[in-house]
């Protein structure tokens, strides 16, 4: 594998950072704030009307009652929240470390690895963790396996954005800070990090969206989440159950991305 990866590696490394760089947005219009929640509420209302007007058999009733859906939703949120917090705790300090002068020699290699890593399919990573955990350790540790897979994948965008964010800070500003007698740590915490917050946040938002999406697939390794409603619908061949699970998943992902977008606007340091 390494030999076949080698020729492609520089290309992947040179591949653009475009999907993660934050969109320079002008002030958002009121319409764009209001549209998404209304749209999602309408989708949910439509789904509710559709399902409640169907004759549900016992299998469908078991999958589509409020208790089961709430439980699946909570499992999903838990998977997403835990893995995203872990990603932040790992990726940002690592990104800071890797932009310090003494780690310069590892930087290129790591960024290349991170870029190639993004070509690994999430479902493959999840399946590998699941198959490994379930067949070797012989106990059901689906949730742990899922979280490890989610974190391993979503670390990349945050790590990369942290490094890019810190590196794009104007050297002369740092110089000015040092000139004012601020120490190394002060320069990092009071100048570099605040100035890279928008880019880091964009990476965190990407990681969050990836985690919500991949958590859907976690159902395949017994880790629960909204995906298990879809899987239940697939295995019993009930289209209503499949559609309900899929729509709820889509609504949740769009809602979380919407909220993350607002958080991005609010958390951005004033003056930037």
């Amino acid at each position, binding site marked *: 594998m390494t030999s076949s990866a080698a020729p*492609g590696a520089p290309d992947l490394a040179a*591949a653009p950072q475009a*999907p993660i760089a934050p969109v320079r947005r002008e002030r958002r219009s009121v319409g764009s704030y209001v549209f998404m929640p209304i749209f999602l509420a309408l989708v949910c209302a439509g789904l509710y009307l559709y399902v409640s007007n169907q004759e549900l058999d016992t299998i469908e009733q078991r999958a589509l009652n409020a208790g089961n859906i709430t439980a699946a939703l909570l499992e999903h949120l838990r998977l997403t929240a835990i893995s995203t917090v872990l990603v932040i705790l790992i990726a940002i300090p690592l990104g800071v470390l890797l932009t310090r002068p003494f780690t310069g020699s590892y930087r290129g290699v790591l960024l290349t690895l991170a870029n190639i890593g993004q070509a690994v399919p999430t479902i493959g990573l999840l*399946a590998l963790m*699941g198959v490994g955990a379930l*067949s070797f350790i012989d106990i059901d540790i689906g949730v742990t396996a899922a979280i490890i897979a989610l974190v391993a994948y979503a670390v990349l965008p945050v790590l990369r954005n942290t490094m890019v964010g810190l590196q794009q800070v104007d050297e002369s500003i740092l110089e000015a800070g040092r000139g004012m007698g601020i120490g190394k740590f002060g320069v990092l915490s009071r100048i570099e990090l605040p100035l890279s917050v928008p880019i880091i946040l964009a990476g965190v938002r990407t990681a969050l969206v990836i985690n919500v*999406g991949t958590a859907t*697939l976690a159902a395949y390794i017994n880790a629960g989440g909204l995906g298990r409603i879809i899987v239940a619908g*697939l295995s019993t061949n009930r289209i209503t159950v499949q559609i309900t699970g899929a729509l709820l998943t889509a609504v949740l992902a769009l809602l979380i991305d919407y909220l993350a977008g607002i958080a991005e606007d609010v958390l951005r340091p004033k003056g930037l």
Partner: protein
Amino acid sequence: MSEFFDFLGRRYDDLIEVGLEHMYLVGISVLLSTAIGVFIGVTTYRTERPREIALAVTGSFLTIPSFALFILMIPIMGIGAPPVIVALTMYGLLPVVRNTITGLREVDQATVESAKGMGMGRTQRLVRIELPLAWPVIVTGVRVTALVLVGIAAVGAIVDGPGYGTFIFDGLARVGSPAAINLVVSGMLGVIVVAILFDTLLAVLGKLTTSRGIQ
């Protein structure tokens, strides 16, 4: 480890065939995304509202989890390759649209102005000046799209789509048997190889199609 290589040897024909299917699926979707994405970019880059809407809508496509979108395609398109191609095309739009808009907006206005002075019309300026100058940026977007789609295509096996996803899901269905891990790992490696092939191919194509004056 040797067991894994035995497995690769045994399933060699399968792996190649499934790989070609995977490439075919992604190739068509990338073409569609590029055609539609460049069209959307060209029609919206001049005015602020349409531009914002185009980016917001194609951005939300990418937010919808692939598992959900593939399932939502079933009532409309059935199962197999068609729903996967439609879903992949939707996922591939954002990088192309965004880079088309960025690329076109970065074209030096003085250049466009002089083309106007030479008597070129609106369409001529777009086709002969603006698009060729924006092309390297657009190709970059297409490469991102290809990388994203190669990975998502693996999930398409859920709705009976072809490609290396079938290996991964076969492996998941056989948890506990020794074949499971071989199936999953070979599926993953297959996806990575396809990703590298696509990226290299598109890099070369991009070079070849970029106007010589700006290389």
